[in-house]
């Protein structure tokens, strides 16, 4: 029974799904976690969706903040949740160009279009869409000498944006020529040979992964989230020396912590372990806590590898995603593991534990493992699959 319409596990609420109209590139989404404002699904009335359920969203890009979810499909954007002080509200936005990427925080959602322009939509105010203009700062661009020896400083011009990311206290954009913006101020420019693979933000810090596997960190590192070995603030991207030389293939940040996966399949986490989100134990004994802040990347093992019965099979992590206080890891076999805060069901674990400070097995996608995308929101986890997916429930728990 590979693929097929029957393949969605029976405990989904699938009544409302029109299974025939899935277009190419669209994903179906499973979700769990905080749903008080109806942001995950208007068809599920629960305030908390404890275990993954399919939700009525078809989107190529999706982000989840505390009070809303934004889903992009082609040129259209749907935002729902608490909008203008009304719960279960929906807002539809049409863009002039295809949406390339979304980023969001409590107050606003950033929309990057294929043509390199960025719009900002304020969630709790009526003033709608506004374009965000990023202007280059000439001090970062090499000056061309004119034939008369004068420097022709090209006046600040609007920059086309390639990647965006934001958190409650930070907004980052990367221009097509490697310009780095914090807010709309250019703070840096990477050399041409540096190619960005991923750009992510926590509440107040930013990470960029390059194609050759290095991570740069900047922003507020008051809880160790920069991974630079000290507690401090960096205005400009700084290479994380501790893991430079190890090829990193995927990074994530959302709250006060950061996470990465290496090409060898090692998980690294650093930053604030307030709820076990680093996958590192929190308590020394029943009353005394371990230190909660880790200022350099820590290698974290999945202690109980229970995803595959076949012990011969070599399961290793391939992707990582983070929410405000949790971390989700996807394995090469299609299994998903989780660590961190679970008070709002954000890990999708079938138990009601408030947190787990070691990675626990959650679920597994058998047929479409290459097409799975995990998006961890603030207190949610959403999993997008390109085809209808068969899921295996862990009966052991």
């Amino acid at each position: 029974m590979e693929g097929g319409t029957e393949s969605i596990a029976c405990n989904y609420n699938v009544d409302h799904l029109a299974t025939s109209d899935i277009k190419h590139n669209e994903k179906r989404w499973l979700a769990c976690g905080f749903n008080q404002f109806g942001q995950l699904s208007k068809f599920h009335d629960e305030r908390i969706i404890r275990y993954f359920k399919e939700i009525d969203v078809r989107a190529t890009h999706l982000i989840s903040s505390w009070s809303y979810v934004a889903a992009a499909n082609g040129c259209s954007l749907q935002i729902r949740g608490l909008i203008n002080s009304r719960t279960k509200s929906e807002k539809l936005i049409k863009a002039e160009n295809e949406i390339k990427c979304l980023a969001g925080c409590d107050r606003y959602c950033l929309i990057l279009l294929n043509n390199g322009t960025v719009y900002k939509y304020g969630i709790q105010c009526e003033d709608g869409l506004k374009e965000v203009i990023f202007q280059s700062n000439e001090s970062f661009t090499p000056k061309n000498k004119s034939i008369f020896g004068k420097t022709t400083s090209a006046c600040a011009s609007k920059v086309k944006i390639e990647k965006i990311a934001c958190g409650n206290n930070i907004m980052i954009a990367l221009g097509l020529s490697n310009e780095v913006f914090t807010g709309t101020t250019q703070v840096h420019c990477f050399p041409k040979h540096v190619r960005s693979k991923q750009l992510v933000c926590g509440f107040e810090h930013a990470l960029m992964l390059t194609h050759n596997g290095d991570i740069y960190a900047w922003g507020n590192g008051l809880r160790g989230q920069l991974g630079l070995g000290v507690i401090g603030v960096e205005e400009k991207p700084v290479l994380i020396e501790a893991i430079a030389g190890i090829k990193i293939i995927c990074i994530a940040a959302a709250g006060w912590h950061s996470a990465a996966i290496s090409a060898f399949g090692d998980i690294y986490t650093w930053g604030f372990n307030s709820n076990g989100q680093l996958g590192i134990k929190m308590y020394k004994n029943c009353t005394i806590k371990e230190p909660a802040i880790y200022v350099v990347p820590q290698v974290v093992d999945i202690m109980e590898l229970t995803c595959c019965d076949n012990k011969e099979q070599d399961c290793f992590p391939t992707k990582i995603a983070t929410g405000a206080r949790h971390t989700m890891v996807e394995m090469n076999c299609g299994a998903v593991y989780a660590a961190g805060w679970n008070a709002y069901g954000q890990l999708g674990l079938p138990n009601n534990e408030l947190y787990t400070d070691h990675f626990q097995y959650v679920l597994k996608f058998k047929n479409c493992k290459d097409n799975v995308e995990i998006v961890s929101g603030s207190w949610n986890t959403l999993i997008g699959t390109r085809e209808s997916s068969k899921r295996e429930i862990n009966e052991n728990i």
Partner: protein
Amino acid sequence: MEIAYKLINLLPQIDEIKEILKSNPEGEFILKKTFETFNGIQKQKPSTSDSDDGVEECYFLVQALLDKFWEVIHTGHFSEVPLDVRKTYALASFCKIIFLLLESMEKSQIEKCNEVLDDAILLGCSQNIFSNEAKFMNLLTELFDSELDPTVDLQLPIIEPLPRSSVDCDILRLDCPSLEEFNEKCFTPQVPALLLNTIRHWPALEKWRDLNYILKLAGNRTVPIEIGSNYTTDEWSQQLMKIKDFLKRQFSQPKQQSPNDDKHEIEYLAQHELFEQIPLLKNDFSIPDYCLLGEHKEMVDIKAWLGPKGTISPMHYDPKHNILCQIFGSKKIILASPKDSDNLYPHEGEFLSNTSQINAASPDLEKYPRLSMVKFYDLTLQAGDCLYMPPKWWHYVESESPSFSVSFWWE
């Protein structure tokens, strides 16, 4: 239950807190709904199942708001967190207390309320929110005092006064100097001094030796405690805990030494503004007159330092004038002048740059050769003594016995 209704009556109207909520629509949405629900159940007690649903949903919402704002308050520098956010946090905490009391009045529940209130005070900002807030707080404090007496379950020792030892003191010693004398000999020329017999009249010197007195007034309150003897080591950490648990572990006799817990870690209530939290303790001492000298004499930071023998504050300096008053126990103190800063090997990086890497109690001259050029001043601070340290004077402090000190910082 009755008390929950009394508390509801004291809550503000939503209009009174409108300004606070203006910049956080989620908070406004949730608190508005909660206040409406409170008004509803106030009118139609005993509660109907309809209102129960509303109560349940609002409780969930208030908890979500607290969890969310906990994240906001812990992002960035605490001093830069908008006051409105912290006030909203306090308001939501007050609502949570009411929900808890509506649910049950059992002791464990009241203990929970006490914790929520401390959270509101420590993380939130519980002042200047609404007109009835003092009444609201008093009602709660009365409830906690009558229902939760920590001295029922725990007996603590009375710390015996140490015989006064006549040890060397390398700095100026003044016997209860007048304000003029202090100004002339210490404050103006920036000279550290041991001040004798200036706090003899403080009731704290007698009262606080009886740890049960502190337990009774403060036992249920949550405070930040430093774990590990020294804040520059990797093992050091800080966490919030109740004073009674801290006192029990560090002072009750005999020290519980269960086999699993042979590594008895030193815990230190350090640099905490305890007296803002428990104003009753303020009646037992007064701000030294010497703090009147200075430009901001109305802004004196008062901090409590309570711990067992062996707590260490490594060599560091603070930016303000400092009078350290010893209530009980004794402390070994080593001072160095700001002139010697370059030879004291401060840590690199933003956060520990006021702290030296050296162990002042046994300086390693091979590792830190420039220490040989530093003039160190040794002294012992005994109960009833005060030490004046001008701004930026380096100091190392180690408790030689169970010890309680109060420090006054001013500019």
